[in-house]
């Protein structure tokens, strides 16, 4: 292994183009509080970013080769006393197990994505699931009820938010914006999302009014590299659990998007960096303010990091 070159310019260019994770807005006086007890959900509040993701990606999904299959998203956000605020969507993934009659998410990438999204706001929690039906069933199925009825025990308030996407509407030329024919239904260009809540012990889902507010989909920048996340998720997750202080950032430059891992080294300000793109993994060391690229392209991220740490230890 040898040091190739300093890459100060590369670092500067990249830092200018980094898509830093959205930071939490300052906590307004009295605006945020954690209730000691959760009441039944009275509404689900989506950010406009989340609403756009759902309609856009459902539309894109239907045009793909696997467009006849079911798909879905996991929802992250804030659980307030009587409402759920959805601020991030984690896709089912290309490695999902799906058909026209079922979908099982690839949870490895979703776990990693949840760690990345929650770096800046650890109040975010799992709120529920959206999945699609190829036909016109706008309500969760009996099979959904059996699984969700047990799963909601894992959620705050023992209650979850569930969305069903269908494409049984008729697009019209006047579809300039989404509309709500009923409080729990959103429609746009022939697509429809119907929202429900389910509490542990309930015999069925109940319609849940949906409303929009302005805000981001905190996970949207990850969607562009989702298949890369899926490929590396297990090894990055292992590394994260072993190395405290590991941080993530989504980056983008003329070579496309990527995920940057930063692992602090012993000396203040020094770090080991791994840039993961769809077709390559690059390793860097930041020492005394100087960025060094390492000729070392181990595809397995955890192994690459430990080999590099061993090399640094040998040189110390």
């Amino acid at each position, binding site marked *: 292994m040898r040091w190739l070159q300093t890459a100060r310019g590369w670092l500067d260019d990249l830092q200018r183009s980094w898509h830093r994770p959205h930071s939490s807005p300052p906590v307004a006086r009295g605006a945020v509080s954690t209730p000691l007890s959760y009441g039944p959900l009275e509404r689900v509040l989506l950010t406009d970013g989340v609403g756009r993701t759902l309609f856009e990606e459902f539309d894109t999904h239907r045009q793909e080769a696997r467009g006849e299959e079911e798909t*879905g998203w996991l929802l992250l956000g804030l659980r307030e006393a009587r409402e759920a605020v959805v601020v991030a969507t984690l896709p089912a993934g290309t490695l999902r197990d799906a058909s026209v009659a079922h979908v099982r998410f690839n949870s490895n990438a979703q776990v990693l994505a949840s760690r990345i999204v929650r770096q800046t706001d650890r109040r975010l929690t799992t709120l529920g*699931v959206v999945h699609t039906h190829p036909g016109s069933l706008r309500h969760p199925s009996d099979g959904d009820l059996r699984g969700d009825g047990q799963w909601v025990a*894992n959620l705050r308030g023992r209650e979850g938010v569930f969305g069903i996407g269908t494409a049984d509407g008729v697009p019209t030329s006047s579809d300039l914006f989404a509309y709500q024919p009923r409080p729990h239904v959103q429609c746009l260009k022939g697509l429809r999302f119907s929202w429900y809540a389910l509490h542990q012990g309930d015999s069925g889902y109940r319609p849940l009014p949906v409303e929009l507010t302005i805000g981001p989909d905190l996970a949207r920048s990850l969607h562009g590299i989702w298949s890369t996340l899926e490929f590396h998720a297990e090894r990055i997750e292992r590394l994260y659990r072993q190395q405290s202080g590991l941080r993530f950032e989504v980056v983008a430059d003329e070579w496309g998007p990527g995920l940057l891992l930063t692992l602090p080294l012993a000396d203040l300000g020094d770090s080991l960096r791994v840039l993961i793109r769809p077709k390559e993994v690059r390793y860097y060391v930041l020492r005394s303010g100087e960025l060094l690229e390492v000729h070392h392209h181990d595809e397995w991220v955890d192994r690459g990091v430990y080999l590099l740490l061993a090399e640094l230890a040998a040189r110390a």
Partner: protein
Amino acid sequence: MDFRPLNDTERRQLINALRGNAESDRAILMDRRDTSFLGTADEVPDEEVISAIKSVPCHY
């Protein structure tokens, strides 16, 4: 003991925690081993989130 300066995220979290404690009596959590800042009571543990993600059932 680690005396390094806080990074931006940690500093923001600490400020929010102090504000929540002063204004809303929200508890600030402390690591029993070294008294370092561990967050606030309204944070959701990683394990809770990840357990929920891993147990999402098949949907039909």
